[in-house]
């Protein structure tokens, strides 16, 4: 097996590798119920238990399950080689919202996924992670000209560690919009490298990480622009309670020829308790001279003035804090276009807030 990274490596210094080690050495147990995890809709549904496809629980539609040997240099992504899932759509093809539920029961499980959309194809995939143990995923995405993919991923594991690696190539006028919600109790690392290779491509990767207890979650995302007129958006929100830590590292690289790139990067952290930590690492590296890259990075506590305003109208402190925190998180979650999906993600965030506050 490949050597795991260590905290001495700059790109992994905030990763809770101790949680990963502890999670992988747990024993397999029973699976949590899947009821209530499905979002309404008649699109394909797939269940993977400990990384193994569950045909009796699945209606795979356009998704196939097959051996995949990913070409990645990523240390955790490379571990996933083996059977995985693949969605290949022909030109102009569209499918109903695809849902994948990953159930883990302990120990470690690895699974690769491939999404290949031909010209002007359109797909939307929702993934949900529940259970325990170390869950490790690599998703390789290739979008041809004009293809459109939306991804909504929620991490709800009750314990353990979830590592996700996304590698995407975005062609001309294609768009990838992926939103992540970390609202479980597992440690996590959401790791991505999106490359805009065609003119006018759009790359979006953002989300909300909600941490509490001793939990540590992080994102480490790079968007590379190598073509003209590209756009990218990285809107991340971190909410940290108790003694937890949330870390947001986001990077935009604009190559010499990638003129007229329009990048937006917004990293904001909210500390619910003074003992919590939010780390932010915004990076921009721009070699073209005609680009727009808006960026902002802030960490703070709830605005006391706003809190008193809500309380003075009759809201007790807990609900008032929850309301302000929800609004803070909404910046990221409201990026989900599909209303049914957005509402489910908002409800997950709400449930987290009700427990954490």
């Amino acid at each position, binding site marked *: 097996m490949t050597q795991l990274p260590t905290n001495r490596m700059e790109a992994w210094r905030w990763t809770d590798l101790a949680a990963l080690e502890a999670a992988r050495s747990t024993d397999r147990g029973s699976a949590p119920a899947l009821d209530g995890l499905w979002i309404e809709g008649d699109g394909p549904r797939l269940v993977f238990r400990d990384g193994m496809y569950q045909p009796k629980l699945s209606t795979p539609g356009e998704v196939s399950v097959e051996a995949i040997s990913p070409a990645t240099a990523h240390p955790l992504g490379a571990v996933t080689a083996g059977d995985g899932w693949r969605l290949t759509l022909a030109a102009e093809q569209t499918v109903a919202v695809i849902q994948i539920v990953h159930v883990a029961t302990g120990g470690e499980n690895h699974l690769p996924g491939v999404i290949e959309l031909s010209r002007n194809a359109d797909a939307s995939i929702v993934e949900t992670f529940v259970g325990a143990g170390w869950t490790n995923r690599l998703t390789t995405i290739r979008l041809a000209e004009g293809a459109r993919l939306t991804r909504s991923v929620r991490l709800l594991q009750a314990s353990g560690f979830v590592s996700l690696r996304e590698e995407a190539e975005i062609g001309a006028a294609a768009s990838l919009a992926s939103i992540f919600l970390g609202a479980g109790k597992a440690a996590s690392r959401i790791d991505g490298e999106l490359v805009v290779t065609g003119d006018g491509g759009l790359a979006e990767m953002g989300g909300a990480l909600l941490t509490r207890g001793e939990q540590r979650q992080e994102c480490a995302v790079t968007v590379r622009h190598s073509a003209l007129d590209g756009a990218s958006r990285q809107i991340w929100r971190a909410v940290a309670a108790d003694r937890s830590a949330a870390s947001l590292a986001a990077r935009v690289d604009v190559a010499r020829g990638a003129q007229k790139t329009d990048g937006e990067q917004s990293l904001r952290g909210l500390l619910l308790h003074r003992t919590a930590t939010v780390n932010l690492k915004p990076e921009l590296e721009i070699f073209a001279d005609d680009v727009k890259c808006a960026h902002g990075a802030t960490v703070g506590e709830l*605005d*006391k*003035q*706003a809190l*008193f*305003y*809500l*309380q*003075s*109208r*009759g*809201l*007790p*402190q807990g*609900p*008032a804090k929850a*309301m*302000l925190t*929800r*609004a*803070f998180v*909404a*910046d990221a979650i409201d990026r989900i276009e599909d209303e049914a999906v957005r509402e489910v993600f908002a409800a997950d965030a709400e449930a987290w807030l009700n427990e954490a506050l």
Partner: protein
Amino acid sequence: MLRIEDLHAEIDGKPILKGLSLTVNAGEVHAIMGPNGAGKSTLGYVLGGRAAYEVTAGSVSLEGDDLLEMEAHERAAAGLFLGFQYPVEIPGISNLHFLREALNSQRRARGEAPLSGAEFLKVARAQAAALGMDAEMLKRPVNVGFSGGEKKRNEMVQMGILDPRIAVLDETDSGLDIDALRIVGDGINRIMRAPDKAVVLITHYQRLLDYVRPDFVHVLADGRIIRSGGPELALELEREGYGAIAA
């Protein structure tokens, strides 16, 4: 209804209120006027229950209950409304959502059934219309992008929806043009002029008092009330200035 006795309060160790006493009975409108720095806004915040202000002596009771023992939200449920001089902008929360949660929190605290979405919407629309506020603004995030006048109007819409027993309105007239002043004044009269309600108007200028006729006018200077009288006192202040009265 509201009884303030020998109230002393400070912020960051600095005394602001230095022995303020005031009794407001049901059916009365009291205006509190005074120069900048007299402690007018502090009085509003202390009555509203803002944590940063520390009461060091004195007492405040609302309908016989100890107001100072209550949390800010309990004061609201007990019927106190604080109109802010600078209403706070809250991105990401719609007016409607905020007010429905606020009203229903108050109702639950009082043992009343919460209003359904439809019931609430009816009340909210009626209050917005009465104050000349576009119903679309109810859907917008609280005060975000509102002009100064729109924010004050929104305060009055909130007051109308929450229907308090006593309103403490801090400089509700600032930032209003003549037309808005009349609408807000009419709103205060309509919502609060009742035998079982009362208003404390904290203001710097006499002009709002042309629309909301006070029964009593008090001059606040250096943390205590130095003179009380009828509506004529406001006119005297306007004519002669605070300096002459406070001297």
